[in-house]
């Protein structure tokens, strides 16, 4: 009895702890996983929608923020009572391209939304100026961008493109490719490959989003790049960084009165041979470096440039 009691005590404590934890896990895990998934998804969608949204380009339908998977026209009810949703904006564009909204946002934003809808219906465009408030504009933009459909395309090093089906990536010879993190495996062996998300808007493919991962001064800089098929960068987003505060970390700095990181914003609209630093680079380009942080600036610039070049090599002819 004396020898067993310590083991028993430990077991009891462990079991109780396990029970408590599994209850908490059940409560929190769905929220956490959804947030993680959303984070990258949002970034991806935000990248491919142009700055000023032209309503005439957008097919009619229901667009919501957050993306709740609402597809049908009477989808108002489907998200009622969903947990974890604090803010949403549901946009409804009817066949006459008229915009209707339903929302749950903080009060100071709400008045902007009403005004914005009026203005949008007049001009058929969504711009920050029309919305009158950056956050409201973002809500619209994100909601609209949720209409962009993404199709995953795995591009192997030899140029073979494999589109994702519901069973995953199946090659011509029936082999299955598995993507884990940034690595692609086939029959348990690692093969070189890269996943591109081709964005379709209204059935037409408009752009692709892919991840590049340059190494900065003190950290990896996983960055999403959106580019059109003719090689114009639509935008980039640095997903995470831990560069030196005040130096390299300024690659995600947002200047006062602005809404986007100034450094990343510079890339929007550039052609591939313009993606060089203005000075101190192989040839003069259009990216102003972060003061005193040449390494971070050059790493991001070079990473994006090479990513786009590779993308063009893969898809250029078809574009």
């Amino acid at each position, binding site marked *: 009895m004396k020898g067993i009691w310590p083991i028993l005590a430990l077991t009891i404590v462990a079991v109780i702890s396990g029970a408590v934890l599994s209850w908490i896990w059940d409560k929190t895990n769905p929220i956490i996983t959804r947030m993680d998934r959303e984070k990258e998804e949002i970034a991806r969608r935000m990248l491919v929608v142009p700055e000023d949204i032209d309503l005439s380009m957008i097919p009619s339908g229901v667009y919501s923020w957050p993306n709740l998977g609402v597809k049908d026209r009477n989808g108002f009810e489907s998200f009622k009572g969903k947990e974890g949703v604090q803010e949403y904006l549901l946009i409804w564009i009817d066949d006459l391209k008229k915009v209707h909204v339903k929302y749950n946002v903080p009060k100071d934003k709400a008045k902007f939304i009403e005004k914005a809808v009026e203005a949008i219906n007049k001009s058929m465009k969504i711009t920050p100026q029309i919305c009158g408030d950056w956050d409201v504009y973002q809500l619209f933009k994100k909601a609209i961008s949720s209409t962009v459909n993404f199709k995953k395309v795995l591009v192997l090093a030899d140029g073979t493109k494999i589109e994702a089906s519901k069973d995953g990536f199946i090659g011509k010879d029936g082999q299955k490719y598995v993507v884990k993190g940034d690595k692609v495996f086939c029959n348990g062996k690692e093969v070189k490959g890269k996943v591109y998300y081709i964005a379709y808007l209204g059935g037409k493919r408009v752009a692709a989003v892919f991840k590049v991962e340059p190494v900065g001064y003190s950290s990896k800089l996983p960055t999403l790049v959106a580019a059109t098929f003719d090689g114009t960068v639509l935008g980039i987003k640095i997903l995470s960084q831990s560069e*030196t505060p*005040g*130096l390299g970390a300024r690659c995600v700095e947002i200047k006062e009165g602005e809404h986007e990181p100034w450094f990343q914003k510079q890339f929007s609209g550039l052609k591939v041979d313009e993606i060089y630093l203005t000075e*101190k680079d192989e040839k003069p380009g259009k990216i102003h470096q972060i*003061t*005193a942080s040449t390494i971070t600036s050059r790493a991001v610039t070079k990473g994006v440039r090479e990513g786009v070049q590779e993308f063009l090599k893969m898809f250029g002819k078809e574009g």
Partner: protein
Amino acid sequence: MRIPYNLEERFKVSSSPHVRKSWTVRSVMLDVLIALIPAVLASWYFFGIRAMLVELVCVLAAVLSEAIVQYLFFEKVTVDDLSAVVTGLLLAMCLPPSLPLWIAAVGSIVAIIIGKQVFGGLGNNPFNPAHVGRAVLLASWPVYMTTWMVPTKPGTSQWLGTDIVTSATPLGMLKESGYNWAVVAKKVSLWDLWIGNVGGSLGETSAIAILIGGLYLLWRGVITWHIPVTYLGTVFLLSLIFEGPAKHIADAVVYPPLFHLAAGGLMIGAWFMATDMVTTPLSKGGRIAFGIGAGVLVFLIRKFGGYPEGVCYSILIMNAFTPLLDRIFKPKTFGEVTQG
């Protein structure tokens, strides 16, 4: 019998020796200051009013902060030994001329308080105070600390400090060109580099002026040859071996080593910082190891590191190794030989 101890004829006694070499901390520091004169003059010539201001502010801040700290902590105020002046001036020598003066003052205060007084004052600091000050400034205000003024001629508006044109340092150019010697060789001539006509810190740029001061110190016996020679020699050899043959410029073999020697803070580091008595090894063997270690570190940081320049860090790192080197290179007592 007479009592031998007649109070009137008592003399002052002390233990031997009864004579002392006529040098003191003060005279050592004075020698260092004298040795810095050429470098200071060079900085005045190339950087003008800004140089004078930065040097003045650094020295004043160092002296004042030392006096105030010692007064506040009831220590003997020892600013008259000139060590604070030397620290302030050496710090100024490692700062860019265009640095805002208040940052220079903060650097001096940090150098004196955190670099020196916190450890118990002169003689007890493990790290070179001036370089501690510089390292803190570099970490705190990297943008200011890496903005370099273009050298100029006396009398121009830039010399008077009214408008300031900035450029990269030679080492910065080298780093940014991705160690492409051909690019750098076109921009920087060795003559400009050695004479000091390039962008850089106040006292770091003119290698020749510092060399003169260093030789003066050597002649005065304030420093020994061990650290400067091994330090510079290591950098020279490494750059000769690893940089020399590979690059396609005309004077490929000579250019990189001479460039490395004169560029950045290597000269002032080797002659004035790494030879700082307090923070370097005691024995000759230890000093040689110190010099080689610092030389290797400089080369590694310059070539592979994140910063274009590595002298400051190489010396601070080797300062940390000093107690270990002292232990390893303990001198062998005369007669400590196993006979037969």
